[in-house]
């Protein structure tokens, strides 16, 4: 325990301040080629044909790759959890988002690679894109797949969390407050654009310099795409120029690797800022509809939530993100009756992925706006409304987890003090204790009793 609370020097600090830290774009290798990716100019189109012959013949070009070159083109990020793989790494017969990778070129330098990209002839049949997830259930919309525009993973079409008698809560309510919340997509925007350098070694192994945030995950994905053993791939990384979730998708390694194997030369591919912003996966946009059943004196009796998660064109981690979202829809407050339905919707937007607080920030955004709206409608101080409904030790979360040491009360009181928001004496002195007295109203007695029961069989049902 020497490190906790101590101000220790950063192990990489001297290299950072002397400019000697080697990020992936600072790596090079003898005979290294530059890679550029061919990307879809359309949101949605059928690919009629891809002709790479002119690009292959272009002077200075060492290799051109399309889906035909990838030993296993479709690898699912969550296959281990039972989420089917749905995304071809290089587009095959259709493109589902603007910027989707179709192929790539390895050439003597970047300018030559860009010239060669212009020589690849792709014929498209452009289709009407599906871009507004609020229309996911409407008839007559463009269909993303044969199964439609909504998915979760077999056998379910959505994630639900249910606790208590929601209908009874809404019947008993003095006031029902509704709101729609739409946090938009966000690019992680690390200052270091993502990339890699793949070196085919003379012993047949591949050395992959990478900025990935997830070394073993990337190794697994790459090995699967290339149909090689992980032991034949050596990843060199751990130096990440900012990631924030945007460097977990193994976006560059498979293409650079397949080009390096074809060209038998090292290949480096670093995204441009445009690629990072326009084609790299983002934090998803969400549509959250929330209705709260309230008493006049400021108790939350129940909540209903409908969430539409814009996954973008392919699944990636969306089923997982929507699950995390669903598990947090009570927020830091106790909601004795809850019914949530979260749908993951495919659209012709860029596929979405992790970003700090994956799935949960969208829930918090909606919850906190809704909490303030609730307080405004009731004419109660929004800080005190939150404190009144705050999680307490012994409360039962919607996921059947009994809270042992929630920090809502202490956190809100500390925030109020920090910003100088006056609280009435009742709330200023509020303790983070188990419910009793005025803080154990009749509608919370049941959940308190249930929490103490702690029956795992009950939780499983």
């Amino acid at each position, binding site marked *: 325990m020497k490190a906790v609370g101590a101000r220790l020097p950063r192990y990489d600090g001297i290299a950072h*301040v*002397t400019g000697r830290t080697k990020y992936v774009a600072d790596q090079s290798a003898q005979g290294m080629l530059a890679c550029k990716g061919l990307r879809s100019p359309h949101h949605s189109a059928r690919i009629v044909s891809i002709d790479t012959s002119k690009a292959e013949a272009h002077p200075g070009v060492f290799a051109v790759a399309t889906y035909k070159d990838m030993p296993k083109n479709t690898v699912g990020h969550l296959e281990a959890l039972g989420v089917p793989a749905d995304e071809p790494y290089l587009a095959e017969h259709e493109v589902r988002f603007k910027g989707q990778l179709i192929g790539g070129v390895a050439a003597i330098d970047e300018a030559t690679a860009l010239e060669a990209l212009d020589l690849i002839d792709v014929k498209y049949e452009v289709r009407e894109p599906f871009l507004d997830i609020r229309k996911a259930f409407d008839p007559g919309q463009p269909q993303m797949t044969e199964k439609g525009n909504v998915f979760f993973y077999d056998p379910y079409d959505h994630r639900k969390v249910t606790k208590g008698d929601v209908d009874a809560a809404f019947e008993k309510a003095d006031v029902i407050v509704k709101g729609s919340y739409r946090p938009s997509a966000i690019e992680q925007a690390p*200052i270091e654009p993502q990339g890699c350098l793949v070196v085919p070694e003379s012993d047949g192994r591949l050395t992959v310099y990478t900025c990935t945030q997830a070394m073993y995950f990337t190794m697994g994905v790459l090995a699967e795409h290339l149909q090689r053993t992980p032991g034949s791939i050596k990843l060199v990384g751990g130096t990440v120029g900012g990631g*924030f979730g945007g460097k977990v998708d193994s976006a560059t390694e498979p293409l650079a690797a397949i080009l390096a194997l074809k060209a038998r030369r090292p290949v480096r591919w670093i995204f441009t*800022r445009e690629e990072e912003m326009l084609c790299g996966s983002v934090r998803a946009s969400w549509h959250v509809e929330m209705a709260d059943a309230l008493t006049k004196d400021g108790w939350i009796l129940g909540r209903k939530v409908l969430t539409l998660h814009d996954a973008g064109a392919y699944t990636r981690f969306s089923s997982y993100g929507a699950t995390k979202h669903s598990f947090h829809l009570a927020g830091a407050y106790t909601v004795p009756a809850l019914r949530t339905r979260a749908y993951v919707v495919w659209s012709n937007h860029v596929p979405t992925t992790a970003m700090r607080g994956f799935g949960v920030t969208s829930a918090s955004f909606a919850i906190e706006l809704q909490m303030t709206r609730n307080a405004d409608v009731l004419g109660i101080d929004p800080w005190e409304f939150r404190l009144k409904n705050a999680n307490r030790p012994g409360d039962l979360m919607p996921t059947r987890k009994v809270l042992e040491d929630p920090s809502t009360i202490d956190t809100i009181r500390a925030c109020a003090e920090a910003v100088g928001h006056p609280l009435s004496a009742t709330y200023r002195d509020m303790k983070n204790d188990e419910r009793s007295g005025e803080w154990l109203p009749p509608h919370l007695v049941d959940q308190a009793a249930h929490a103490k029961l702690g029956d795992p069989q009950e939780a499983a049902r």
Partner: protein
Amino acid sequence: MHLVVNGLGHEIRADGLTSLLRVLREELFILSPKAGCEQGGCGACTVLIDGQPRRSCLTPLAALEGAEVTTVEGLSDGVDLAPIQQAFYDTYASQCGFCSPGMMMAATALLAHTPDASRDQISEALEGHICRCTGYVKILDAVESVAKAGAA
């Protein structure tokens, strides 16, 4: 084309429209200036040209006849750190580190002509330098600690 970088003269082969950033990184293997956007938007490629902070990604080689360029490699010998490097190290101003070289060069230029710069002046000098890790507070703290030493 003759170019002086960190006190050493180089004969550069690249053509005149090549950016200084590419010349530094690809011809001279001076790697501290970073290509964050190559559009002049992030500040990670900032170097000193005749003492002034400049975006090397937007500076063509042809504009540098007779100029002296300084990068982080020229701030110190890497063993005994310059005050701005020591401050970035001590105050944890460098997290992922990618924006740090540009930040330190902009701060160096500021402190050269305003050794006792105020926090507001430091903020102004670092405008246009994007950091996605730190939230900037530690960076301002680092530069301010050098400025306070300069004022003392």
